């Protein structure tokens, strides 16, 4: 009996020790620079405010680099617990059966406040009828422009051209400001910018059933031809990088809203922002990342990951997040705070991305698993057309053929 009670006591002690050492939750994220520091600060706060879980953040490189690491990890059976990844690349990982569907967590946990999420941002994470990710750092590309150059060219610096045709007219004046001066710096980031541009001309990118790409339809060819015209007439510079805009060589740049925070401190001119021009219809791509939980983990660890997701997407943290990074806040109540007393009031440039909310489309809205591969083929076609002057129709046809072969191979 004595021995038995000692055993009980020891077990109890072990239990206490076990309860006191926090459950470790590894977390791979993919934002660098100043945004990375914001994430690290949040992790520290979270680890300090509770003792049950310990979040261990690791920077996994860009979204594209992280996809490769994740797939290697899935193959090796050595995945982290929590993943921050662009929703555009998620289907491939989800199809591998590696990601936990979160609908159960959302229903069970009243503390999560599903209704507070901005609907299209939440919906971007629904794949094949299930919610796999929680919207975290969404963004759209916006137009950045040099108001000083607009003034010099005799254009209204408070009114950005509304349609691409208007833009073309304005572009002629802007490019006439000097030698080696351009209206537009045409850079495409991961490729989402290009997708948005063709949508604005009423073209489509991918068939709804993911059976083929639609790069050879007339509207699509017209869209690309329009931008080739800008390049050919030296109204736009292709792949000039941030420097083309920052140095005043190009009057307008297209990039994610996230760049506001960095660029406003770098710009030596009066920098304005605007919603996208349109042509056939208003449309912008929705990019950015979400938080995912890997299936292959014990439930208590996954619960920790879920708790951290709730923390990161809480009202206050989403306010702080949007203020620090210029990303969308994922929540309506946070948006209200930002509207009334916060950033959006102090600097309306941060509000630009919200003005586009009515017509956003997720980058990979049809949820095609091999999206990165297809998109690389598409980007290369643009490079050939813009850098080497390759014929638009023929180049897009060749690229579409190649992409459709990939689709066929994987179906």
């Amino acid at each position, binding site marked *: 009996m004595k021995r038995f009670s000692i055993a009980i006591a020891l077990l109890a002690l072990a239990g206490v020790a076990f309860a006191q050492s926090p459950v470790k939750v590894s977390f791979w994220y993919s934002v660098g620079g100043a945004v990375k520091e914001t994430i690290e600060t949040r992790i520290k706060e979270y680890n300090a405010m509770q003792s049950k879980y310990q979040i261990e953040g690791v920077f996994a490189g860009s979204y594209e680099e992280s996809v490769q690491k994740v*797939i*290697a990890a899935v193959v090796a059976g050595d995945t982290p617990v929590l993943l921050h990844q662009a929703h555009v690349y998620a289907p491939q990982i989800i199809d591998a059966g590696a990601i936990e569907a979160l609908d159960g967590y959302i229903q069970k946990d009243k503390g999560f406040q599903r209704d507070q999420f901005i609907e299209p941002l939440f919906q971007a994470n629904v794949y094949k009828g299930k919610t796999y990710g929680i919207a975290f750092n969404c963004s759209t590309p916006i137009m950045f422009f040099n108001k000083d150059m607009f003034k010099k060219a005799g254009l209204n610096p408070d009114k950005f051209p509304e349609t691409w045709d208007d833009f073309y007219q304005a572009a002629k004046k802007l490019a006439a400001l000097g030698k080696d001066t351009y209206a537009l710096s045409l850079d495409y980031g991961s490729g989402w910018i290009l997708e948005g541009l063709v949508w604005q001309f009423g073209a489509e990118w991918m068939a709804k059933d993911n059976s083929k790409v639609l790069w050879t339809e007339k509207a699509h060819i017209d869209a690309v031809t329009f931008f080739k015209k800008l390049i050919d007439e030296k109204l736009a510079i292709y*792949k000039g990088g941030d420097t083309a805009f920052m140095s005043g060589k190009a009057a307008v740049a297209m990039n994610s809203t996230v760049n506001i925070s960095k660029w406003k401190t770098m710009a030596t001119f009066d920098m304005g922002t605007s919603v996208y021009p349109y042509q056939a219809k208003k449309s912008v791509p929705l990019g950015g990342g979400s938080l995912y939980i890997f299936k292959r983990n014990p439930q208590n660890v996954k619960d920790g990951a879920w708790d951290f997701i709730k923390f990161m997407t809480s009202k206050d943290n989403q306010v702080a997040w949007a203020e620090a990074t210029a990303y969308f806040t994922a929540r309506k109540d946070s948006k209200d705070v930002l509207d009334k007393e916060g950033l959006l009031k102090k600097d309306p440039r941060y509000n630009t991305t919200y003005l586009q909310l009515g017509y956003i489309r997720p980058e990979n809205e049809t949820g095609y698993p091999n999206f990165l591969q297809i998109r*690389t083929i598409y980007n290369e076609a643009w490079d*050939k057309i813009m850098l*080497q002057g390759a014929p638009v129709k023929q180049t897009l046809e060749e690229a579409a053929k190649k992409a459709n072969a990939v689709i066929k*191979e994987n179906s």
Partner: protein
Amino acid sequence: MAIPTSRGRGAFIAASLAPSLVLIFAFSYIPLLFSVGVSFLRWNMLGAPKWIGLRNYQQMFTNPDFWNSVKVTFIYALWAVPSCIILGLLVGMVLKGAAIARGFFRVAFFLPVVISMVVASLIWRWILNPEQGFLNYLIYSMGLTTPQSAPHWMRWIKDPSGGAMAAILIVGVWKRVGYNGVIFLAGLLNISPEYYEAATLEGASPWQKFWNITLPLLSPVTFFVTIIQIISALKVSVSPLVMTKGGPVSSTEVLVLNIYKEAFENFRMGYASAVAVFVFLVILAFTIVQFRFGEKKVHYK
């Protein structure tokens, strides 16, 4: 250490070789055989692999991307091999002849060899940046040309029609010349000075001495350097990966980079393995040439 008996000696040799054999098998031969096996599969690492026989090879030979990479690698080798050899020989001769600060020159030329290729590529990516790079800044400030009238290749890493290729060639040659230089130096120091003394007495010009003594007696070294250089040119990958990611418009997508992209970006392990096997066979062919002819045919002693 006492030399063991003949039987013990065999065991001793085996024990000494074991660590490196284990490593070579684990990290070279087993992956190599694995790769050959995978080249007959369709496999994206996530799903179940499927046996498709020679279809990957068939696809490879009809894929324009593959032929583009063959072309790009060939162009790279065509420029890199002669430049590395000629400049390497030049460096070797300078190192031999340097009357002062010989040690300094040896270190200076050999330094790039020791630097990691990733670091070297990062440095050169910055130097060769068309907008902010040091080289273009230098060219412009010397008044040789202006940003408006500069030729397209001066956009270096961003120019698909030669500039980007020139950029990775510059790094490749810069990195390699010192190594070749030192090998040539060893070869040059091996040539007995008596030949030159005799030639001087006969009244030979420096050019005649170079052409009739130095070059023929260096030929084993030159042959070795050439083969090693060809093999290294076929394997080039880090500089384009870091500097251009194979672009713009695949103009620097060499074969190894093509393998990397297919395997780890497109997750086509089978196809990528087929290309890898192709590269392996080409390099194997050059290695056989070196083993066969290296010692026998190119010898003048």
